[in-house]
């Protein structure tokens, strides 16, 4: 009973509005298990830069279900101890240089997963149940290397093996969205994996392009694509906060900058230079308008 009370009390139900991305990053303790979306789904890149500036460490990075540039940057900056993801990919920009290096030097603990397993783990957390069964995966080396996954017999069937995955409850979800309202509701449109992340996480931190006066839940056209403030711990406004990976429907990826990143991050030294120029310099001095 005591345990149950403690668990309920751990959640906050009111959204805080913070002054900026540095305050947002300040809400992420060292050692947190932090869930982030892929490059196409609203990445809080300004907040990730702030996280690197504050010297975050020992993070457990979770790609939902995979992760791109922000993952490579956090790993390169030494913020990450463990990675769980279905892929770490920079898409058409090529191999992720800092991730590749960290794997080669065994600098991070890698837990390879597969996309639906990450969704299913988060769905278990969303439902408050300990695990979720999933088809497929049997006989793969993904399963062979996951001592936290189990195979059970379908209790309703005969000779039917299923993989079961433990619930994934991130300490923090961090992402970027186009719009919030003054109640703390966040509009995500069709990017519903962000909704899943918010439902499953202890804390959800969001940077947004704009904070509007109109209540997003008052209009059905927006309400269905809106995360209610119930799940949103804190919001900070960040103009072009998804630069350089871009925010679909609003601004495109900054391809030139992303190519430059890949070139520089190819070496430790080049990556340090990238950080000096685009991360350790304060956010206001970084030109995000390209």
């Amino acid at each position, binding site marked *: 009973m005591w345990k149950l009370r403690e668990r309920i009390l751990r959640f906050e139900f009111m959204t805080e509005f913070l002054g900026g991305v540095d305050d947002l990053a300040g809400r992420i303790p060292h050692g947190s298990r932090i869930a982030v979306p892929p490059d196409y789904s609203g990445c809080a890149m300004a907040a990730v830069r702030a996280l690197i500036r504050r010297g975050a460490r020992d993070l457990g990075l979770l790609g939902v279900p995979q992760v791109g540039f922000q993952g490579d940057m956090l790993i390169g900056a030494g913020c990450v101890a463990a990675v769980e993801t279905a892929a770490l*990919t920079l898409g058409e920009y090529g191999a992720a240089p800092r991730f590749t290096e960290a794997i080669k030097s065994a600098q991070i603990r890698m837990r390879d997963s*597969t*996309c639906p*397993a990450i969704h299913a783990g988060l769905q278990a957390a969303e439902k408050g149940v300990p695990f979720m069964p999933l088809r497929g995966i049997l006989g793969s080396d993904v399963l*062979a*290397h996951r001592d936290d996954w189990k195979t059970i017999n379908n209790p309703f069937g005969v000779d039917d093996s299923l993989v079961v995955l433990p619930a994934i409850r991130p300490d923090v979800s961090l992402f970027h969205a186009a719009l919030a309202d003054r109640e703390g509701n966040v509009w995500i449109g069709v990017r519903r994996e962000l909704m899943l992340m918010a439902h499953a996480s202890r804390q959800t931190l969001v940077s947004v392009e704009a904070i509007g006066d109109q209540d997003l839940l008052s209009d059905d056209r927006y309400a269905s694509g809106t995360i209610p403030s119930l799940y949103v711990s804190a919001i900070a406004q960040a103009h072009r906060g998804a630069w350089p990976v871009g925010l679909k*429907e609003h601004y495109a990826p900054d391809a030139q900058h992303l190519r430059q990143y890949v070139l520089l991050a190819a070496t430790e030294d080049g990556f340090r230079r990238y950080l000096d120029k685009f991360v350790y310099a304060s956010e206001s001095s970084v030109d995000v308008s390209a």
Partner: protein
Amino acid sequence: MYRLEELLIVSIATMLDGLKHVAVGASSPVPGAAALLARSRSQGSLRVSLLGSRRHNAFTDGGKELFDCAAQGRIDAFFLGGAQIDGEANINLVGVGDYPKAKARFPGSFGSSYLYFLVPRVILFSLEHSPRVMVPRVDFISAPGASPEGVYRPGGPYALVTNRCVFAFRRKTRRFRLLTAHPGEDLASIRDNTGFEFDAPERVPETPAPSEAELALLRDRVGREIAEVYPAFAGRLWNIEQGNEAEIPAGSTEESIAARFH
């Protein structure tokens, strides 16, 4: 005259004719164009879900919907690649060498460990048909090509399309069989570049060339459609400069959002 990519697109599209729902994952311009070509000649009977597209993707329930859809049997065909592919159609998207400290590390398994089991017609695709990709045995099984009896597996490998040839996969024998060789290739050149054993007919037919009608469709309608997601690919192949993606609104982001939200 036609390009290698056009030959591959048409070869894949032929495998999709008559299907009802084809899904295409990330980083797959050739399979994506093949799916759109098959759709354009299906007279409205083929649905295509192209990941990363706004216009050719009807999913509205987030990243998980594709996978839920596949597990229910709502997807007929999907495409997978592999940094390594072996003769039993095991695929490796993770790394070369001992796991986890790989000699060469690739992005990861994505949804392959799951979709390979559930989508009836999984078409493997590779633009590098060489001994380092077509290996005797993969170093890491992202997804196995075959499963023991009793494992729930309505799906699996159907064909392997490469820059040199087209193989069919036979689930009973767990072996590839060479179907056609692309112009300039023959059984000897394909064996030289394949690290695994496979079956072959005595005389290997040439992969059929794209028809004028197919090329016309590709270079116009399909090219414009695929350019939304793969502008560099469409530009390089067909000089299609601008995709039909919704234009990024000019002016400040706040203004564009305000305009969308009355």
